[in-house]
């Protein structure tokens, strides 16, 4: 029976087109993604947008990391800050074109001055930016990555005492 459920789950996962949840308000995003985190899982949130060139340039590194660590307790979420009216016209076509495998959500709450600090108080609001969370630990990087190694080095810091 367990096996059957697993099979059904896999079948759905493989066949269903990728869903893109859209959060027009911050609070539901916070509830769904930043609260009640599994203590042993490393969560990686990359804040990006289809119009942001340095963001687009570094996405392949995030995708590669996600692919390499897919059997480990990592959870990658690409948080698009595209405007709500661009979800169908820009975000989804982009994901299809680039064959994005990581989970994508759109955070389209325009009242950013009220939620930026809730992501990280050091964030100026510029993108790209990346939040890494594990247990009670948080690391925040307001920068863009030029290489896969540079990204990996930062992401893995969450498991080190630095």
């Amino acid at each position: 029976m367990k096996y059957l459920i697993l099979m059904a789950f896999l079948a759905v996962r493989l066949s269903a087109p990728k869903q893109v949840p859209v959060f027009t308000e911050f609070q539901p995003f916070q509830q769904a993604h930043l609260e009640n985190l599994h203590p042993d899982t490393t969560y990686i949130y990359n804040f990006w947008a289809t119009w942001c060139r340095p963001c687009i340039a570094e996405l392949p590194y995030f995708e590669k990391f996600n692919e390499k660590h897919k059997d480990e307790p990592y959870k990658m979420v690409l948080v698009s800050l595209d405007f709500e009216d661009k979800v169908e016209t820009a975000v989804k076509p982009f994901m299809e074109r680039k064959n994005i495998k990581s989970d994508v959500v759109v955070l389209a709450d325009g009242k950013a001055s009220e939620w930026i600090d809730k992501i990280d108080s050091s964030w100026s609001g510029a993108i790209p930016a990346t939040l890494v969370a594990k247990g009670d630990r948080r690391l925040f990087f307001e920068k863009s990555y030029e290489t896969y190694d540079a990204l990996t080095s930062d992401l893995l810091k969450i498991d080190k005492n630095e």
Partner: protein
Amino acid sequence: MNKLLIGLVAVITLAAWTTKTQGYKVGDKVDSFSLKGVDNKMHAMEDYADAKGYIIIFTCNHCPYSVAYEDRIIALNNKYAPLNYPVIAINPNDPDLYPSDNFKNMKIRAKEKGFTFPYLMDEGQHVYPKFGATKTPHVFLLDANKVVQYIGAIDNSTDASGVTKKYLENAVDALRNGKKPNPNYTKAIGCSIKTKK
């Protein structure tokens, strides 16, 4: 002894803090700058003899967040320039990295939108790092003495119809009434300013 120790710790903490954060803070006096505008003329704060303050906005062509605020920036200048708080817009981006932000395209955009304020190119990217601007749009409100009184966002909503707090207007109005802006620091999402390596 205790007092000395506390004092020492405070000095060290302050030193660490100032080296970590870059650019002007509220209360800092801004250095003069002279930059070329889309009218091909050089512009400086000193051009405004009667200025009671300056609304410096780092913005650009390519960034959707900047574009979303264009009409509001025009409205701000139309409202506050006659009250001697002119808008001065500066494009901080390297045009080699974003061709849509080059001088020619700045001229085209300024004409299309009918910018009523100077739109300046931060040639060589020397000015924006002094301000500590990290993104577009990013606002710095200065008083008559060129001292920073407010840093941050224009208002609290990217979508103009959703605005419920006009941070920048409230800050200018506070200065006009001889008061300190509150809040004097806000945040917004923006496009990171790109510099050549």
